[in-house]
């Protein structure tokens, strides 16, 4: 289980995250929703080790990982699929997939085959340079790349950003499938609160650096404040 306890994050003098605590139970899907600038990406980037926590602890299965270098966290089974995809544009699709398994030394053939079953479009585009893929394809590649490390916990930062509704559906169904079939724990950030709450076992709402509300996905979907603020429905 991933546990975040009283986490604070500062950029210069500005406190972007003001002491948040939450758990991500094994094999669950947890989502963080909230407006722009609420501190969602900062939280995930800190869990991944890209940003230093100014106080508080992050622990994985009881082990304190707050100050572990980011590359080591991948080895511990935490992977972040970053905001904006960040595929390596001048590597091929296959190389991008392989680099996701950088820390593994075993045979990748079966895993690559599994990835291609999950994302048949990537198989067709095997040799294409990742920079020339469409936005949706790049997002799939970014998810595929993250999966190659065989993570216990996969964090996804706005995987639906800028994608057509049909592709968003596809990505979400793949996320659910990864969670069901592999048992991978998912920690998801979304602007698309409706989609995220529907798949989430547990959800947290962030507002300007604080968690203001939490509950199961279904509870928050039914919450009037959430409906008004994030789902575009009137109270």
């Amino acid at each position, binding site marked *: 289980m991933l546990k975040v306890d009283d986490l604070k994050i500062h950029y210069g003098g500005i406190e972007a995250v003001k002491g948040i605590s939450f758990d991500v139970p094994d094999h669950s899907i947890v989502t963080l929703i909230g407006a722009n600038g609420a501190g969602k990406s900062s939280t995930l980037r800190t869990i991944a080790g*890209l940003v230093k926590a100014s106080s508080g602890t992050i622990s994985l299965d009881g082990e304190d990982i707050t100050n572990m270098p980011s590359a080591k966290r991948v080895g511990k089974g935490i992977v972040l699929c970053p905001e904006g995809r960040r595929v390596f544009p001048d590597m091929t699709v296959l190389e991008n997939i392989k*680099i996701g398994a950088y820390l593994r030394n075993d045979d990748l053939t079966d895993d690559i085959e599994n990835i291609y079953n999950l994302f048949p479009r990537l198989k067709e585009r095997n040799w294409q340079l990742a920079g020339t893929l469409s936005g949706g394809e790049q997002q799939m590649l970014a998810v595929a790349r993250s999966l190659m490390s065989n993570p216990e916990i996969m964090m996804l930062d706005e995987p639906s950003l800028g994608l057509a509704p049909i592709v968003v559906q596809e990505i979400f169904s793949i996320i659910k499938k990864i969670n069901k079939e592999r048992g991978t724990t998912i920690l998801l950030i979304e602007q698309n609160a409706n989609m995220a709450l529907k798949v989430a076992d547990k959800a947290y709402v962030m507002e300007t650096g604080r968690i203001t509300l939490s509950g199961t996905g279904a509870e928050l979907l039914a919450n009037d404040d959430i409906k008004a603020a994030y789902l575009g429905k009137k109270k």
Partner: protein
Amino acid sequence: MSLYSIPMFRIFYFKGKSLMSLTTFLQQCLTGISLGGAYALIAIGYTMVYGILRLINFAHGDIFMMAGYFMIFAMASLPWFIALPVVLIVTTALGVGIERVAYKPLRSAPRMSVMISAIGVSYLLQNLATYLFTALPMGYPEVPGLKKVYQLGGLSASFVTFLTPVLTLILVYLLITLIQHTKMGMAMRAVSKDYETASLMGIDINRTISITFAIGSILAAVGSILYFTDRMTVFPFSGSLPGMKCFVAAVFGGIGSIPGAVVGGFLIGMGETALVAAGYSTFSDAFTFVILIVILLVRPTGLFGEKTTNKV
């Protein structure tokens, strides 16, 4: 039919009189290619470090100079076949050590600070060498066989002249294979594109940067052995002019590109030799810098440069 009627050979003639025989021409070409090979090996170090740190490692030419001194001292007490690997190892340690001490602490500092640190290291090495070894040129030792003169057709040159371009091409081939087809190479490519995402893949950024410096330093050490065997002396500023020229070669080829650095190295080496052969040796050094200015004005990305060099 006289050679004069073939346009290509007209350069040997001036007002119908022969300026240079074909043999002399080929001889100069060989000299140029050989010098170019040594330049290429050094230029690769500039281009690789730039690729991964976006830093012009001004100390690189001085690492090359220090490799010259290491060879002098290694050969003084060891047989050549042990001295060679010792020089490679010690030079690598120096290059990696400089990165650890002078560049790594500045990883998140503005690029200008790292550049200033590099200039500082360059002066430090030059002054350290002056202090330790005096400013007087020291004789460069001879690896048996390297200076032996061979005849090839009408050409005669020492073995090192033939060896340099061949060895350069072999090393470049190995390097490109390493970068394109190994996990380590993949990590180097990833780090040079995007530190953050590379570390999200589990790649150790600092280790990858050290490996890059190690490779650049090994090649500089090999280049130094080939270059100084021909020049025969080393002094504390031996590295500065060749260093600048190789930096220009890297810019010429497109900084960040390894094939670019190789082509740039060969072109600068040959251009310089051609000017010397044509009697303009006074201008041969200036030539390099004229090229730098022209390239920066006309095609700042160089021959093979990336179109976008900004980091995500």
